[in-house]
């Protein structure tokens, strides 16, 4: 289909965005046409979601303007966006768990005075119709609470469909969906395009982009590096544009001496989240854990570390069976865990850097009763030097540091505990390339030092470069274990993508 000649609906001019002084989007200019499906591609953290959110009024750009139908617009908030006919399907579905599915469908698009009547009958009928269109059978009067992530995502999609929006932004809508649901979504997206609406489609899956999108825009490190018709780019070109260098430039981990089993889990199960997970990690080994977002990797890690213990299954550390009811017990056994959500589970934003670094080693800073500040300082200074954390003073609240340096501080917190098993959950998420390289070096060193490392990551190149073995999870189960020699992006993806029942190989 040729949409290249369609009139421009929205044009972004020189959009830039800073978070806490860090520029995550720089001078992005982009024209979106009517009746096209436009893909946004880029590595994790490239700025795709941020760009989408700026268009949808969630964030305001630090610089730059948006022009809609030739008129400059100020999309100050989501209400304005809605009024202008712009709808965003968020990467993580947002919903109102206590409201019915039908209400979740209409909230945010129903216009009218505050005291206007809610037309329940019509609302329910329309909701049923829309869900029918998507081919999902969800009782629209039931509350959102308790729906699976996939169903929630379908409701999100239905919401965008039911609105009369001219511009629909879909941020990784397919991540939790089954192939059949994906196919339905594509049919609908195409119909929207044919009606003359504009769809922005964000995905990490190249084959989806190829199947659906008319044009692609590629982001790297907050900049737009290319906008081309899909057909004009080969996969290798896209990857090169995304990562800025050929794949093999990633440093491979040097082979280390693999020792005894440090961590062994057998039959770990937590109904609804994961089941029958068994694997082991040896000293000096880096084991990767791959999977699509929501596959349950984080839940497994949290179960091992005692944050939300598994209901069945056993754990052995250094050959001894252990019970780990809470993280304190895990730490005592020599485990360490760098969580994926730094803001929520990692840093103490308002506390000074040194206190953040020493948070997990109370005994070392207070051998008897009182905290010895000199000892604490010394430990922190050493950690800062060793990981090259950039900061002004140790008394600075950690929230004032950049994300990468926060992440280093968290890593240094765990190194102080002298862990034998280190679980890293998306350790490089939201970290710039330079710091990433440092992280890879550190991980290599730690393995060489005889520690066992379990690395959870959604970045396949990262896993391929660093791991001795890669485990793959899909929908809460382990679906593959690939030794380094057999691990390829294709093999991992094949194991990671959920399958329809009965169709599975």
């Amino acid at each position, binding site marked *: 289909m040729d949409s290249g000649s369609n009139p421009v609906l929205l044009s972004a001019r020189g959009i830039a965005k800073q978070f806490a002084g860090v520029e995550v989007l720089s001078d992005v200019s982009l024209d979106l046409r009517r009746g096209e499906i436009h893909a946004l591609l880029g590595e994790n953290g490239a700025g795709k979601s941020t760009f989408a959110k700026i268009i949808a009024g969630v964030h305001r750009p630090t610089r730059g303007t948006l022009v809609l139908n030739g008129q400059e617009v100020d999309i100050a908030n989501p209400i304005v966006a809605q009024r202008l006919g712009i709808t965003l399907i968020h990467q993580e579905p*947002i*919903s*109102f*768990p206590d409201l019915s599915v039908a209400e979740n469908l209409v*909230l*945010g698009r129903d216009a009218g005075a505050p005291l206007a009547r809610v037309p*329940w009958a019509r609302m329910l009928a329309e909701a049923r119709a829309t869900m029918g269109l998507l081919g999902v059978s969800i009782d629209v009067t039931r509350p959102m*609470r*308790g729906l699976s992530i996939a169903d929630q995502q379908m409701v999100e999609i239905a919401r965008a469909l039911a609105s009369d929006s001219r511009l629909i932004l879909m941020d990784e809508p397919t991540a939790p969906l089954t192939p059949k649901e994906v196919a339905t979504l594509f049919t609908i997206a195409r119909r929207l395009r044919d009606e003359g609406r504009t769809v922005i489609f964000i995905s990490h899956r190249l084959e989806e982009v190829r199947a659906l999108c008319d044009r692609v825009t590629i982001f790297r490190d907050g900049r737009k590096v290319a906008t081309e018709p899909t057909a004009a780019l080969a996969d290798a070109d896209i990857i090169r544009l995304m990562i800025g260098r050929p794949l093999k430039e990633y440093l491979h981990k040097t082979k280390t001496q693999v020792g005894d089993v440090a961590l062994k889990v057998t039959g770990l199960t937590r109904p609804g*989240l994961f089941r029958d997970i068994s694997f082991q990690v040896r000293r000096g080994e880096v084991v990767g854990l791959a999977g699509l977002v929501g596959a349950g990797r984080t839940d497994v890690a949290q179960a091992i570390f005692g944050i939300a213990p598994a209901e069945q299954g056993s754990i052995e550390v250094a050959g001894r069976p252990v019970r780990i009811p809470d993280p304190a017990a895990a730490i005592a056994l020599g485990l360490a865990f760098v969580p994926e959500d730094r803001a929520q589970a990692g840093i103490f934003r308002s506390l000074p850097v040194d206190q953040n670094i020493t948070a997990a080693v109370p005994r070392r800073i207070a051998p008897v009763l009182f905290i010895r500040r000199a000892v604490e300082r010394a430990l922190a200074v050493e950690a800062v030097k060793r990981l090259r954390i950039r900061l002004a003073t140790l008394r600075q609240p950690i929230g004032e540091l950049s994300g990468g340096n926060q992440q280093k501080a968290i890593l240094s917190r765990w190194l102080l505990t002298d862990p034998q098993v280190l679980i890293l959950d998306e350790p490089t998420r939201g970290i710039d390339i330079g710091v990433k390289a440092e992280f890879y070096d550190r991980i290599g060193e730690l393995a060489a030092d005889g520690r066992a490392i379990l690395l959870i990551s959604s970045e396949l190149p990262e896993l391929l470069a660093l791991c001795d073995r890669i485990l793959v999870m899909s929908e809460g189960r382990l679906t593959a274990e690939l030794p380094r020699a057999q691990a390829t992006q294709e093999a991992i993806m094949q194991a990671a993508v959920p399958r329809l029942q009965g169709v599975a190989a």
Partner: protein
Amino acid sequence: MTGWRSLLLRRETGIAVMIVLFCLAVGAVKPQFLTLNSLRIILLLTPLILIGAMGQMLVIVARHVDLSIGSILGLTAMVAGMMFRYAPEVPWPLAFPLAIGLGAVLGLVNGALVTLFRLPAIIVTLGTLSLYRGMTFIISDAKQIDRQYVPSALKAMSQTSPVFGIPWIIFIAFGVALLTWWFAMHTRIGRQVFALGSNPVAAPLRGINVTRVTLTVFAISGALSGLAGIMYASRWGFVNPSNTGNGFEFQVIAAVVIGGVSINGGVGTVPGVVLGVLLLGCVSAALPLLGIPGTTQSAIYGAVILIALVIDRMVRMQGRTRGTQRAGA
């Protein structure tokens, strides 16, 4: 789930069953509890709490709390009483808009402090509880408005009846409940109150004007407290700067929590709260009949609140979903 099963599992059913069992138990000991007259007594105990509970329900559904309603009741009642006393030439029905309007303004002050400065409602309203009570003393010069100043027509509303011997104030209270139900279930902003409480982070992303919704619930809570203030003058015939409305907030919160409104926001129904109010009314009416001293009432209230909280929590833990099992939740 079939229809009758879901009906059985509803909170309202549970409270209704509790009310019936309680009444039967009391009736077994004191048959006069099961007469029309005691229904009248129970109903007469409820109007103020019911009106207050409607406002508080909306506030709690929006994930806030309003501890100042007792003081708002006192202040508005005092202002109305002073109008009766010092401006007897003003037609007395004007006291209604006066008290309701003043209550709305006081509620708006709460709401504004909560939204503009992003302060927790509990502390703000603890502060205004004290502040509004102090203002009541100041404007009244710490003097009670005696029975003789309160217009007879107003007092008669608690006694005379349009139909079936049911006094006006009961009609007003249930009318307010009906309006609140309509507001909560059938207006856009009413649904937005539930959405806001259900997920405050998502609310602005879905185009909900959080400031407006928050101000609205606090204003409604204040306005209804103002209405309750007038009704207090009608029911008791006087307005006292220190007693009027004192402790009202606890009775109301008890009724709301018992009625199944979740303090985590987003959940609550008008019928549930109405039943919660009636249950408390039954308890209050039964105690003297059984010869149980009034001094036990407060402990019973406290115990009932805690039991309601624990049951609510148990039910929630049962129906826990994947999302809430996450470590952060």
